[in-house]
């Protein structure tokens, strides 16, 4: 039995009670039920479960496990176009394309996600300011609807449904296969610069100065620092560059084999870690492999177990550019005062490149992402307070990382929801959808 949890392991799912179908290429068809029956169980695709909250959960219904949709279909090595089934992972793709100097047009901070998941959450990466979201590179996809229809969707065919499916949280049907364009790179290495910043203003300046010449930018911040140190951190920027050696893929050797007792992760240990991490001597310039640059966390399998049995929550918001200084300052102040933050806190400037996705999260401004060990009510209250700030400044919160935002907050963050609802497959649903829309 596979464990159908989300990455944050919150809310917890009883895998024994979860009904699951395995999807195979072509042959999959929805079970015959009375399709008009509103009580018929709903469906939702489940891929790598790398979403932190409940967008990948459907406890009242049936999960469609896409792990066997793992075949490549077509690969144009000259033009850099790949067609593959939706369960293929970014790791599989990199193994195939890196030797030919192609790269993913956009990648999140882990390579253990599927193409289907990348579309459903319209993922972004460290190059958002240059490249936008993954959905922009999708040329075509096949969508299987619960009435058995297989629809080819693209920017020119079934366009509305295509736009709804990009960032559509898995609710428009099952994506069967996807065709998308790759990015040409000079080689498999990254030239990286790491720069220390002592406060938020320094961060914004560094980021604005780097946007033009650096393809990838991101910052780690010390979310427990306060006073003069508030907003200190390390800024990392990188560009692809050549390499003389072929890249050898390794599977992660380190793994957290079981849940670590939650109390080990407290403000003292996190504070100590952050202090050491901030103050350690950093090499300002380095030429490194793409893997540790993009996927530092992938080096330790199941790192989420460090948060113990109760799991953890992530909060990722975006704040419009004109409010970024004030809003991020307010947020970091209350997080630091709460002492609840964790070592994985990330700050990045999104650019203004629009995605076709109707419901996509990224928009121009500053995005802040932080992990919080689940301490129950205390944590939920803190996240509500963060929401109050995001709402005040007209920002938004990322569904892929969420397990608790209120329906009211969601409605303000995603005004397109009413339009989007038209494209939802009547027999698809998720715990997330029921939570934020009440149906």
């Amino acid at each position, binding site marked *: *039995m*596979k464990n159908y949890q989300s990455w944050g392991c919150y809310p917890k799912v009883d895998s024994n009670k979860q009904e699951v179908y*395995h999807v*195979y*290429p*072509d*042959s999959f068809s929805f079970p015959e039920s009375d399709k008009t029956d509103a009580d018929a169980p709903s469906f939702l695709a489940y891929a790598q479960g790398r979403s932190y909250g409940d967008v990948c959960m459907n406890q009242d219904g049936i999960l469609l496990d896409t792990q*066997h949709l793992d*075949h*490549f*279909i*077509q*690969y144009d090595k000259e033009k850099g176009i790949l067609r593959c*089934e939706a369960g293929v992972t970014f790791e599989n793709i990199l193994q*195939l394309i890196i030797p030919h100097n192609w790269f993913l047009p956009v990648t999140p901070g882990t390579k253990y996600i599927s193409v289907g998941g990348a579309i459903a959450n319209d993922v972004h990466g460290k190059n958002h300011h240059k490249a936008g979201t993954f959905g922009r590179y999708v040329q075509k996809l096949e969508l299987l609807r619960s009435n058995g229809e297989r629809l080819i969707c693209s920017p020119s065919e079934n366009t509305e449904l295509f736009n709804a499916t990009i960032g559509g949280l898995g609710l428009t049907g099952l994506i069967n296969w996807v065709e998308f364009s790759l990015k040409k790179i000079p080689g498999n290495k990254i030239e990286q610069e790491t720069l220390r910043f002592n406060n938020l203003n320094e961060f914004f300046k560094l980021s604005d100065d780097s946007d033009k010449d650096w393809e990838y930018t991101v910052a780690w911040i010390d979310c427990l620092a306060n006073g003069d140190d508030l907003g200190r951190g390390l800024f990392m920027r990188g560009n692809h560059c050549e390499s003389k050696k072929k890249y050898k893929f390794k599977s992660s050797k380190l793994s957290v*084999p079981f849940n670590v007792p939650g109390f080990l992760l407290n403000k003292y240990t996190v504070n100590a870690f952050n202090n050491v991490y901030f103050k350690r001597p950093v090499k300002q310039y380095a030429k490194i492999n793409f893997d540790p640059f993009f996927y530092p966390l992938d080096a330790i399998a199941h790192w989420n177990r460090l948060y113990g049995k109760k799991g953890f929550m992530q909060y990722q918001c975006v704040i419009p550019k004109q409010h970024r200084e004030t809003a991020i300052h307010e947020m970091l102040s209350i997080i630091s005062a709460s002492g609840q933050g964790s070592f994985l806190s990330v700050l990045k400037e999104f650019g203004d490149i629009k995605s076709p996705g109707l419901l996509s999260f990224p928009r121009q401004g500053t995005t802040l992402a932080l992990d919080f060990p689940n301490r129950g009510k205390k944590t939920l209250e803190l996240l509500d307070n963060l929401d109050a700030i995001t709402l005040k400044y007209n920002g938004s919160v990322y569904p892929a990382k969420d397990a608790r935002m209120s329906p009211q907050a969601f409605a303000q963050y995603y005004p397109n929801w009413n339009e989007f609802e038209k494209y939802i497959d009547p027999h698809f649903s998720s715990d997330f959808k029921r939570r934020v829309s009440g149906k």
Partner: protein
Amino acid sequence: MSNILILGATSAIAKQTTRLFAADEHNLYLVARNEEKLSSIKQDMLVRGATDVHYESLDIADDKQHEDLIQRATEAMGSIDTVLIAYGTLGDQKQCEENYKNTLDELQTNCLSVISLLTLLANQLEQQKSGTIAVISSPSGDRGRQSNYIYGTAKGALTIFLQGLRNRLAKSKVHVVTIKPGFVDTPMTRDFKKGLLWVGPEVISEGIYKAIKKKKETVYLPFFWRYIMLIIKLIPEKLFKHLSL
């Protein structure tokens, strides 16, 4: 570049192994029952670098088909250099205990049909004086246990057959490798509760690939199963018969 015949090509373990071969630009001949799966596997292998991929849908347990099958594969590729036999069923031990017909079916699929194929293939490779025969057996064949001794009987007999064959073919430079995977998370074991000893098919496939390249005789995958089975084999029968294994 060589010519590889994969029997049971839709098996999770076989598919991962074939992917490693595909990247080395070989010719492939894939056989299993499910045609749709075979056709998507074919595309996948071509993308990954296989030179040429043929497939056919066949009930391999039916030994009357074997001569024609091997002839078709040989003609399609020109010769057979390597064969990987991966098809199998776990069967229902309880049903086998109730009805000998079920036992016979299990033995036919997991042992007798494999022996039929190997009889033909061994002769062909022996004449050719080269080639590799890789067969997935199982540690379950190392000692009979109440929970699955029918499957164990089939795999145990297969293991012995392969030993003899290896001995016979050594002088013709035909390499025979017996593969014994431990607990692998595949459709075959979908409903089992998974613990620490379980691995994904991609782990096993790397072991198979290396065992073929390095001309190993018998491999337990992952390696620690050799020691687990050693201990299990050492338990005195007087005690063993009371264990619920």
